[in-house]
């Protein structure tokens, strides 16, 4: 059970940052993950009054506030066009609409959860995160870092040319994914992220030379096989490592072919 002794609606990011330096204090996103934990929190630091719930469009990027809900991401027309629907596809299995109205992109990326659909897709999209003190960091670097006591304020999605596709597999509807794959096919190469391995999502290069002549069912399969060989997989109650490796080859191939078809 989550026990909260004090609640503060932060008036500024500096205040939130100062408060979150104390180990017993905690930043609130949507609180959904926090609520599954058994802990006592001194001060719950609420970011909901800081205007971090907007999506700004600039000529070359979308800048998404940390408190933007997964539902808002799913429904945003510009992000839908940028990702050809992959963003909505990546979150639509997450519990339900009421849940996604609460879960935040900031909490989802800060958490760097093994099962995260959001982390998987955002890695393939070359996202950057903005930290109040730590500045701007590529998500791939952030994902590999240990947890720091800093506020994630925004996530930036660059407007890159090319196509994106997302594919995941679940044992039952609304459960955590057994495996999640995101592929971005860019004029200068391919970005392929695999998550829920069940370890957290990571980018894998595959063998780009295999796609030099274009994406066909054969080259997509060869590339997917290379990714499945490079990636590390583990076993948990949802699936075994070997099954995940087999699934990875199928999902990466499908995602690549979906990019090609679009």
């Amino acid at each position, binding site marked *: 059970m*989550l*026990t*909260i*002794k*004090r*609640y503060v*609606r932060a008036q500024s990011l500096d205040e939130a940052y100062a408060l979150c330096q104390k180990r017993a204090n905690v930043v*609130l996103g*949507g*609180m*959904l993950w926090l*609520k*599954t934990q058994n802990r006592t929190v001194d001060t*719950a630091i*609420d970011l*909901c009054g800081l205007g971090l719930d907007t999506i700004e469009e600039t000529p070359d990027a979308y800048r998404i506030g940390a408190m933007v809900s997964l*539902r808002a991401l799913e429904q945003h027309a510009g992000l839908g066009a940028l990702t050809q629907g992959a963003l909505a596809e990546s979150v*639509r299995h997450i*519990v*339900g*609409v*009421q*849940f996604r*109205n*609460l879960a935040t992109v900031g909490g989802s990326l800060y958490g760097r959860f093994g099962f995260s659909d959001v982390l998987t897709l955002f890695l393939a999209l070359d996202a950057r995160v903005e930290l109040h003190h730590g500045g701007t960091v590529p998500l791939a670097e952030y994902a590999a870092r240990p947890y720091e006591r800093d506020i994630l304020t925004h996530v930036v999605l660059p407007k890159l040319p090319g196509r994106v596709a997302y594919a995941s597999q679940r044992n039952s*509807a*609304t459960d955590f994914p057994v495996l999640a794959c995101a592929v971005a096919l860019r004029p200068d190469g391919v970005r392929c992220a695999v998550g829920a391995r069940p370890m957290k999502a990571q980018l894998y290069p595959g063998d780009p030379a295999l796609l030099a002549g274009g994406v066909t069912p054969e080259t997509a399969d060869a590339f997917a096989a290379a990714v499945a060989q490079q990636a590390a997989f583990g076993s948990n109650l949802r699936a075994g490592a070997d099954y995940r490796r087999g699934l990875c080859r199928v999902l990466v191939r499908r995602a690549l072919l979906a990019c090609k078809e679009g």
Partner: protein
Amino acid sequence: MEIQLKLNGRPLRAAVEPGTLLLDFVRAHGCASVKRGCETSNCGLCTVLLDGKPVLSCSVLAARADGCEVQTLEGLQAEAEAFVAFIADQGAEQCGFCNPGYVMNTIALLRENPDPTDDEIRAYLAGNLCRCSGYEGQLRGIRAFLDARGPAKEGHHG
């Protein structure tokens, strides 16, 4: 601490503990339609509208609702009346425990998308669990209501 909000249109000022959940707050203020189901953000029984959006009240602090508008089924009887009999007609209610959450989320669905397809209904209600029925009854009920009503005046914006 003290919070101020609107509950079913009524301004309310009340003292809450920092960790009080919105679920416990609305139940303590007479809204017993809001049910405590899983309390782990999985079942949708505790659905309320927070500033018009359906959310899980078991997973929101009452403190965060300070300054907001909260609606429960107690305040949305007229809107629910239009379709609940269609759901009952299909035998979709057995123990009925999940029903208020279903009705609240169906209200949210129909406000957002007045002419949903069956797949859109399924997707929107995926976070509402029912231990008794096979979900088909709820779907048939909403479909029967939509067919009886005809196309919505506002048009489709799904």
